[in-house]
């Protein structure tokens, strides 16, 4: 576990707010005061429902959305202070893979054109042979062999899983230090999913990258991640190792999430999470702890006091004012 390795990215009091169309309306606080270190060489999963701010957070890490206040530093340098040329280099070091591989391709481009495009954008490779060898190498590493055959094909000739492999190849062809994958398997069939997940794990090792995985699915996070961060309405509510978080969730929200995941075992049917309602509409953020209106353990103070992330064990943090009193039963036998 690389918690003693240096942070590749450091996020401090990050706030990303979006103005709303109606003037004078309160802005949407998509990310609201997040502190997070991403350590070199780790696989970190950021988990949350839609509206939790997880996608906005990772977009801010790649400098793709304007930061309202707070900071993101990459390799020790604040992104705001990067000069033009440095920003270009930074863009090469951080690459993204998105959910829908169907939409991100130009259907008239061959796989070779798709995967070589980032190289051209960044002026890498002076000869065609050089570009070709980088492209073939990336395709092979992503399991698209023989590479020279796949390079000639077009997106519609590939299966969903193969298309996702192409988008991974076009992300790693630049040899990034940080690969950010946003829901990369949620559109794929179950039988294809775990092959793509293990491809990510293999690539992180062979390419010596840091991997950030954004997902709504805790079981996907469990498969790939060293550490898991859980977000709710713009804030981190719990973070810890995968084992701490799944085996012994401390925050009532995480506990409900882990309890609610249906296990493929009919003898483990039926513990229902005691949580009420839906994710609150982010436009109207509840006072105090944002989860309190749905929380089965909420006390009066929860509607007033904003809980801070506090340590439970080494590396395990939960934002709940009742951390010390609640002793939630582990939801799964592990």
């Amino acid at each position: 576990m690389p918690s003693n390795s240096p942070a590749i990215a450091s996020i401090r009091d990050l706030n990303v707010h979006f103005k709303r169309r109606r003037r004078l309306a309160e802005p949407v606080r998509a990310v609201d005061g997040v502190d997070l270190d991403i350590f070199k060489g780790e696989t970190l999963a950021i988990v949350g429902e839609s509206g939790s701010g997880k996608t906005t957070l990772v977009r801010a890490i790649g400098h793709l959305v304007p930061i309202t206040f707070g900071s993101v530093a990459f390799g020790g340098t604040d992104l705001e202070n990067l000069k033009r040329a440095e920003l270009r280099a930074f863009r090469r070091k951080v690459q993204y893979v998105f959910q829908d591989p169907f939409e991100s391709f130009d259907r008239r481009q061959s796989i070779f054109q798709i995967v070589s495009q980032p190289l051209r954008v960044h002026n890498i490779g002076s000869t065609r042979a050089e570009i070709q060898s980088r492209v073939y190498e990336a395709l092979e590493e992503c399991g698209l062999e023989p590479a020279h055959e796949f390079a000639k094909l077009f997106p519609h000739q590939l299966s969903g899983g193969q298309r996702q492999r192409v988008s991974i190849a076009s992300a790693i062809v630049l040899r990034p230090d940080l690969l950010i994958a946003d829901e990369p398997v949620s559109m794929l069939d179950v039988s294809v999913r775990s092959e793509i997940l293990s491809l990510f794990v293999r690539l992180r090792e062979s390419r010596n990258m840091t991997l950030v995985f954004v997902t709504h699915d805790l079981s996907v996070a469990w498969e790939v991640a060293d550490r898991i961060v859980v977000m709710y309405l713009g804030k981190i509510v719990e973070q810890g190792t995968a084992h701490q978080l799944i085996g012994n969730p401390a925050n009532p929200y995480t506990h409900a999430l882990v309890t609610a995941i249906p296990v493929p075992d009919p003898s483990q049917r039926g513990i229902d999470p005691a949580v009420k309602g839906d994710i609150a509409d982010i436009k109207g953020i509840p006072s105090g702890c944002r989860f309190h209106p749905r929380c089965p353990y909420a006390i009066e103070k929860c509607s007033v006091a904003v809980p801070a992330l506090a340590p439970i064990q080494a590396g395990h943090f939960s934002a709940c004012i009742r951390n010390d009193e609640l002793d939630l039963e582990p939801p799964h036998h592990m």
Partner: protein
Amino acid sequence: MSLVRIDDLSIDYRRAGKTIRAVNELTFSVEEGSIVGLVGESGSGKSTLALSLMGLLPRNGSVTGGSILFEGREMQGLSEDDWRTVRGHDMGMVFQGAMNSLNPVKRVRDQVAETVRTHEPELGKDGSIDRSHELLNLVGIPSDRHEAYPHEWSGGMRQRGGIALALSGRPNFLIADEPVTALDVIVQARILRLLEDLQEALGLTILFITHDLGVVARLCDRVVVMYAAQAVEEGTVEEIFQSPKHPYTKALLGSVPNFAKGRGKSHGISGSPPSLINPPQGCRFHPRCPDAMDICTREDPYQTTFSSSQRAMCHLYDRQEADDAE
């Protein structure tokens, strides 16, 4: 007693002069009062089957063989008029985004009441509104939200509303096609509990179509596993999860992350589901099957029966059945 009997059913689509067989020689039945899970990946034919049960196949699709019996009555060849009374009244359907088709500028209560009136015109305006409140209460919508507009409801409430609409004609058979797929896990768990409660309270029979084996384990009594337009295995939920026979069922179970099994223990299935335009010869799963033998590439597998409730289509068990017969 079986409420629905599907016997040797085949459904074809015609597209650009080609015939695509979306459901091939499918046989299974749904016992009254049970919840049957129909599991498959994209292209397995599970949603086509659902549409055919409701008489809602698109124009280029048609049943080309076999039969569907509902309460003992043959559904093939029903007139559109007959279907209109069957749909909603005998069977209801819940699907993803079932409420997206509602009128955004009309209150939900009034729209549910309209649907009620199409089934029970004798209720009149006031009676149908009362019934609408009753249905919305039944699916757990707080009464102060009944008069909201569709967009004012959260995702979970909308799915509950979809269930209320499906129940508006008092059907005893409910087809649920991926009804919880787009919901977050907490809301999903509560909708599954609602379906269980409704099943018990109203004596419903439910066909639950999904790709999610975790949901099946949580909810269903029996399971039918489909692959490439065919049923490859069928059994009780315990049989399927504890002693699966077909290599596809085994592989599918192995590809689901399971907290109890530990990390990195799930394995995918190499390759991807086949094209139905040109399905593989012999057993359709053979190109991806870890146990494939020579015969699998040539001959269609036939069915082996393992218990009164479990059967699978796989050459691996040919020998065993022959031995058992001796």
